[in-house]
């Protein structure tokens, strides 16, 4: 979608490479087929034409030699019967020799030689007829001396002619043979060449396939693996994903990066919301102090963990109702915020301070001794008393607070104590602190009161069983 115009994607590349390999294989097959075909033709030519020629010439040479013998038989025949026998055999062989000569392929063999052979054969046939005639006459006793001499010559000529055929065809056989040799050498060479070509082609195809494999590994498999590793990593680092590129995997990578970025953003948001929600659940929305529930939870945690004495205190704003009534709730709220500020500034960061009721605050923290608590609360009381609360557009408000606290000692507590017992202990401490507060109120407000006796676990009913 980001690419403009056509860019070859993986699909196209895959297709392209597959097609290339297919083309190579088809090409190799076609080449092999063609080579086979040519070899087949050559072998066909060799076996059909050349071998036939060779066989024929050998047959002719053999028969030509028997022609010499038969010619001799004819010329010396003593009876007509012998003569005819020789003649019949001669004719039979002459015909056969003529046919075979005609069958010799004109392609390989010198036409002049074949022509000469045909001439000699004709001459031989004619000469045989003359010889036959002369011999018949001789047997009949009708030949004179000169004719007898002629017969000898004719017989001699017959031998010569038959011999000439044998020699000429022998030469033909030699030519054909060397031709066959040459052709079979060529054939061998060609077969070898084809073999080498085939091997080269096979190697090339294998290399190409290998190359294609590596190429795919680099362009596809490795990138997918890298993407998978990137996704598996915690946290997922967006810069691990491919940022550039236009093919399918790059686009997938970019989409995944975008998706992960979105997830991460969502996660951050959720975390923030969660934090906010848990804060809201544990804090008072007006003053930002812990609420009663959070106070209880934090107090119980502190009770379980602390090795030092713990001070549980309640603080009530004096005559707050008048502020609300005279200045309105909005001002009342502002006042409460100011006092909450003053109180928290007077306490340690780790100390738990909560808005416990309308204008009542509760705190819990560790101390070394009860005197520490006295000092702290006295200081808080005087800070509140001496600090004017300024509200824009309104007259300054002066207020005081009353404090009541109790100290829990005998810490740390046994780890076997149930949550129930801890709660009972806390409730007991708060109740005691509340009694002290009440005392402070009844003594005229703006003062700090506490119970003399420290609270221990033994103050709680059934605590011994719990401790066991």
């Amino acid at each position, binding site marked *: 979608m980001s690419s403009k115009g056509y860019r070859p994607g993986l699909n196209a590349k895959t297709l392209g490479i597959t097609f290339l390999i*297919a083309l190579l294989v088809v090409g190799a097959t076609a080449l092999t087929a063609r080579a086979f075909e040519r070899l087949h033709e050559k072998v066909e030519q060799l076996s059909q034409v050349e071998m036939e020629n060779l066989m024929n010439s050998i047959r002719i040479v053999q028969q030509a030699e028997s022609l010499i013998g038969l010619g001799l038989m004819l010329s010396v025949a003593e009876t007509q019967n012998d003569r005819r026998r020789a003649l019949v055999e001669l004719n039979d062989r002459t015909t056969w020799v003529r046919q075979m000569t005609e069958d010799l392929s004109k392609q390989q063999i010198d036409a002049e030689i074949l022509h000469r052979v045909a001439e000699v054969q004709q001459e031989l046939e004619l000469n045989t007829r003359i010889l036959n005639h002369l011999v018949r006459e001789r047997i009949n006793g009708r030949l004179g001396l000169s004719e007898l001499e002629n017969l000898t010559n004719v017989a001699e000529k017959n031998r010569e002619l038959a011999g000439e055929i044998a020699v000429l065809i022998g030469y033909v056989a030699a030519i054909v043979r060397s031709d066959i040799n040459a052709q079979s050498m060529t054939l061998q060479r060609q077969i070898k060449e084809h073999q080498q070509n085939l091997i080269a082609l096979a190697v090339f195809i294998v290399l190409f396939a290998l190359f294609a494999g590596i190429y795919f590994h680099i362009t596809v498999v490795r990138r997918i693996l890298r993407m998978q590793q990137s996704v598996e990593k915690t946290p997922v680092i967006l810069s691990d994903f491919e940022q550039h590129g236009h093919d399918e995997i790059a686009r997938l990578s970019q989409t995944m990066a975008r998706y992960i970025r979105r997830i991460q953003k969502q996660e951050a948001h959720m975390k923030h919301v969660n934090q906010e929600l848990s804060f809201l659940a544990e804090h008072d929305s007006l003053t930002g102090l812990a609420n009663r529930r959070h106070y209880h939870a934090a107090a119980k945690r502190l009770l379980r963990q602390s090795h030092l004495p713990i001070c549980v205190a309640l603080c009530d704003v004096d005559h707050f109702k008048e502020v609300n009534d005279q200045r309105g709730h909005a001002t009342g709220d502002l006042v409460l915020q100011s006092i909450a500020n003053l109180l928290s500034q007077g306490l340690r960061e780790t100390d738990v301070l909560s808005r416990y009721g309308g204008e009542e605050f509760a705190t819990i923290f560790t101390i070394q001794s009860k005197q520490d608590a006295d000092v702290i609360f006295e200081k808080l009381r005087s800070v509140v008393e001496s600090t004017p609360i300024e509200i824009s557009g309104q007259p300054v408000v002066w207020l005081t607070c009353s404090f009541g606290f109790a100290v829990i000692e005998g810490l740390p507590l046994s780890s076997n104590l149930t949550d129930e017992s801890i709660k009972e202990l806390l409730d007991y401490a708060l109740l005691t602190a509340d009694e002290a507060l009440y005392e402070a109120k009844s003594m005229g407000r703006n003062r700090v009161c506490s119970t003399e006796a420290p609270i221990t676990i033994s103050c709680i009913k059934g605590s011994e069983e719990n401790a066991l």
Partner: protein
Amino acid sequence: MLYKWFLMALILLLFSAVSHARDSVRLGIHLEPPMLDPTQTPSATAGEITYGNVFEGLFIINGEGELQPRLVYSYEVSDDGLVYTFQLRSNVRFHDSSTFDASVAQYSLERIIAEDSNNPQRILFSNILSIKAENSHQLRITLAKPDAFLLYNLALPAAVMVHPNSSAHNATQPIGTGPFSFVSWSPERSVLLERNDRYWGERPKIQSAEFVFMQTSVGTESLLAEGLIDGLLGVTRISHRFIIRPDYRMIPRNLESKMILAINNAHPPFDDVRVRKALSHAVDRIELTTLYGPQVEPELIGSHFPPRHPAYVDLVDYYEFNLDIARELLHEAGVESGKEIILTLPPTDYGRYGGLMIADHLESIGFTVELDQVDWQEWMERVFTQRDYQLTLILHVEPMDINIYARDDYYFNYQNKAFKDIWEQVMDARTDEEFYQYLGKAQRQLASDAVNVFLFMRPERNFMHRQLQGIWKNSFIPSFVLEDLYWAD
């Protein structure tokens, strides 16, 4: 995937390179036909190649020697035996795609009986009054008188179906309806046929067949020795030698080939019956029977008739082998010693070597014999057609052909009213008994007239490759029907 393709391609390649199962044959036959149209030549050689292969008739003599309808689907004969109605097959085409129908059949048969017909068996159909194509596939033949041989005659090579468009060229380019079509004819070498893949009937297993002409004895020997032919149709002088080879075998066949020393009865001195009788006494038939080697012994005959026929009369000893009687007869006939005669020999094994023996025999009674070796075309032309010969050694392969002696224009030049009368009686015979009786009479007449020197029945054997099966053995038609031929594993 790719590699599968590659593999498949390779396998295909290998398969195309390796030739498949054998489906061609090379069959040696003794004589090159003068033409390839059996309806136009008396030479049985045309039918040897084309009958049942290229050409088909309305009927056929099958491999069991039985008469079977071929291009006829069914037929009816009228009660008086004079009208034959044939239903023809409807899906038959010639090799050039012309259709075979009743009008083509009518044309083929009318061509046989026409005034100017060259058909060698025309006389056999002289009984036919009319031939009519009733409709596209119904043919009616009306006879002058009942003829028990009509269907048999319609099964002869001379009665095969030809198409008016192609019949003129059938001599060199035969076009028929058969399971094989003609490819080429190399003169003096061979005729090549190939399977007709559009044949109306069952497709033969053999794809191509080459009929090689075995023109010379030495060539025959050489081709057999080198295994270059798969079958030699008919025995030769040297066949027996090759029987020891494990790849060949001899199988019998059922022809009725009569070897005769044919005599030109019109050529002096053979126009004298005494001279002809002298020849019959002089020829040593026992010696001649050695022509095919020691393993086969031909059956002697005394007339132009096969011994297996029920009407056969044993006339083997009608003329005893006796040179004295022969010389005496010649003397009586006034033939002087040393009389030069010519023995014309066809280009066959039996011609060459049988001719030598006969020449010896005839010289021993005072003739001077010259051999005249001719090729088959020349023999057909000079001897058979022009009757320009004195003596010839020849094989008559047509079955039941004693009727040739009743023909006026046959190459024996035998003109005998007595025999013609006998033949009339044969033809008119009402019962088998009568029929046989007159046939016997005919045989005796030929023997007493010493028309020819009747020698022997040729031993009928095919010399075949051991794995080549399915040649028709019991057909008495001189033919080599390829349709059942196949190579066994």
